[in-house]
């Protein structure tokens, strides 16, 4: 008789793994990737490929240097690489993309203990680092298709420029200036629905985030539909705010997180120095995650 394996219960486990979750996210990012290639052509391909390759390389070498196991096959570095590429302009120089992607993996993820131990969203933190370090490169925008310099839809509003605003349909499809992956709400929505179907993300993050941005924008006197379609709201709502590692563990905590991020987004857009506030709002809420978790521990069955 063959040797029997003895382990502690349970003896059956679900088939879901970190790799299946992460590669699922990669699939969910494909529609937005395709949209970015349609709009920004070779520029988008270049930045995305470079970012993913740098992320994988950084993960491999950092983990090797830290004496950790090789995890590049679990797909999490690919996800970070794509997401980071999505939140930089298509004209980003190659060295800036590499610096950002390496920062996301090495500084923000691995030095905090690797996947699961990072406090801040790696892609967004890397974007914040680049925005502080290379403000000009990070705010140079081009129009889709013809690559002529332009302003972002939110930039037009912020700077009170006299350029005509893009139509709702252009914003929804992504036919406007902006970061590589954030322009097309439609493509992001398709990927986001796929993640909801796979139960990778919870519905309340996008619903409350987009909903509260919409409502608050209305109350501060801006066009609410324009506000949610322009900029990074959809990308943030479906792919950033839903990052399981850096968000609260309870449903109520998640709703508070989403509402807080939405409030900060609207505040930054209206009263801050930047036209866009998605990135900073989520990073600030990331810092509140441990506190939210501590305050909202679920009540144990039978406890008073």
């Amino acid at each position, binding site marked *: *008789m*063959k040797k*029997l*394996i*003895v*382990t*502690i*219960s*349970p*003896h*059956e*486990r*679900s088939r*879901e*793994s*970190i790799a*299946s*979750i992460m590669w699922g996210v990669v699939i969910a990012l494909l529609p937005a990737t395709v949209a970015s290639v349609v709009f920004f052509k070779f520029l988008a391909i270049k930045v995305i490929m470079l970012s993913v390759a740098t992320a994988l390389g950084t993960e491999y070498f950092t983990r090797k240097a830290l004496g950790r*196991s090789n*995890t590049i096959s*679990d797909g999490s570095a690919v996800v970070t690489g794509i997401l980071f590429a999505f939140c930089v302009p298509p004209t980003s120089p190659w060295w800036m993309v590499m610096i950002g992607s390496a920062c996301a993996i090495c500084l923000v993820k691995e030095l905090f*203990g*690797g*996947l*699961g*131990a990072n406090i801040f969203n790696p892609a967004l933190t890397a974007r914040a680092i680049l925005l502080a370090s290379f403000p000009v490169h990070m705010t140079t925008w081009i129009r889709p298709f013809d690559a002529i310099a332009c302003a972002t839809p939110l930039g037009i509003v912020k700077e009170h420029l006299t350029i005509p605003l893009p139509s709702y349909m252009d914003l929804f499809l992504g036919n406007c200036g902006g970061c590589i992956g954030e322009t097309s709400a439609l493509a992001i929505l398709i990927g986001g629905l796929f993640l909801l179907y796979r139960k990778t993300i919870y519905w309340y993050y996008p619903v409350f985030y987009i909903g509260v941005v919409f409502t608050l924008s209305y109350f501060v006197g801006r066009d609410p539909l324009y506000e949610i379609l322009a900029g990074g709201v959809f990308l943030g709502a479906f792919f950033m705010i839903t990052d*399981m*590692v*850096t*968000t609260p*563990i*309870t*449903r109520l905590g998640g709703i508070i997180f989403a509402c807080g991020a939405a409030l900060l987004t609207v505040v930054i857009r209206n009263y801050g120095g930047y036209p866009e506030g998605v990135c900073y709002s989520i990073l600030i809420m990331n810092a509140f995650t441990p506190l939210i978790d501590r305050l909202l*521990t*679920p*009540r*144990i*069955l*039978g*406890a*008073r």
Partner: protein
Amino acid sequence: MGSFKGGIHLHYNKKRTLLNAVKTCTPPHLVAIPLLQHLGSPAKALVKAGDKVKVGTKIGESSGFMSAHVHSSISGTVKKIANYYHPVVGFAEAIHIESDEKDTKEDHIYPRNVPDNLTSEEIRQIVADCGIVGLGGATLPTHVKLSPPKDKPIDTVIINAAECEPYLTCDHMLMLTRSKEVLLGILLIIKAVNAKHAYIAIEDNKMDAYELLCSKLRSNRWDAIITPFKLATKYPHGAEKQQIKTILNKEVPLGGLPFDIGVVVQNVGTAYAIYEAVYFGKPLYERLVTVSGSCVRTPRNVLARIGTPASALIKECGGFLRPPSKLIMGGPMMGLSQSSEQWPVIKGTSGIVSLHETEIDISDYHNCIRCTKCVNACPMQLVPSRLSILAEHERYQEAKDSGITACIECGICSYVCPAKRPMVQFMKIAKAKALQK
């Protein structure tokens, strides 16, 4: 339909064992009957090598209130009292008996008329005399569970027939084949604890048993006292706290017992054993065991004598189709994996499940990625992800403060974890350490 918070849906794999009729195993030639088959202190041996015993002879004497008698399951000669394989503790003292192949039963086992005025004290005594323990797997001596403290009146009995573990169908089969007897046993339990009412908790994947019990209750006019209750098929609906929450919408206080809210929960198999004890004077020396899993040729329920080696039951079911990588006593969620097939069937053996290497996952584990699947699925509303990290870092006091002792070890957190963390292992260690302090 109300329910408890959390829980998950599993692949139940129950159909195959329900297709085959119950098989009564031939009494084995050799049995090894452990003196420890219950929660509490082991029984003391009453026999010595060379003694003649019959089926149902008391061979182990209960060693206290939290203990139970042990009876012989075959007739023959005691060969020795020595350590032997034990499915729960590894090795333990067992009484080895060789059969005389006559299978003579003790004289006190015969059908009898049960007087209507049987007192609860008398029922408890019979239950204790017959060595009955909780047959759902926890094996708490039943007379203990039927003795609520004087200051805690019982108004409701819940008969646990949820059978939420995958593969296991012995309770389901029992309800289908012995429905009236089960109901008579339930009436005895109601009497023993002076309750007013009983629910039979059945998951809705066993509608045939539910309908059958309903019709038997109506035809015997017991439907005012006993009510079958449909539970949503969800793991772990067979856990008593979750069951009480669903049926009565009451919560057992943390660290307390169902007694505290006037409830007694008994397994349906235990109810049947009580029926046999009272109506036949029959000690608990045999039970229904589900032999299943993808490696067994003919998965089915068997009526097996206590002390029969697992290998004999597997042989009764046609042997192995393919070599198993895991052999589990009980179900795959909370059962105990075994290192051999020599271990004897004990009172708490609800099933023998064999799993093929393609069905098990012993891959390495990773950091918690905070996916919150365990938090949402935990039926006790603990935060398993955090508790597992505390246990990993040996921060047991913090784990205790976060409620780890409430963990029921149902296995859900390990099941759902995409990082493949051995959550139950962390929980068990931390619980043990927390209780030590």
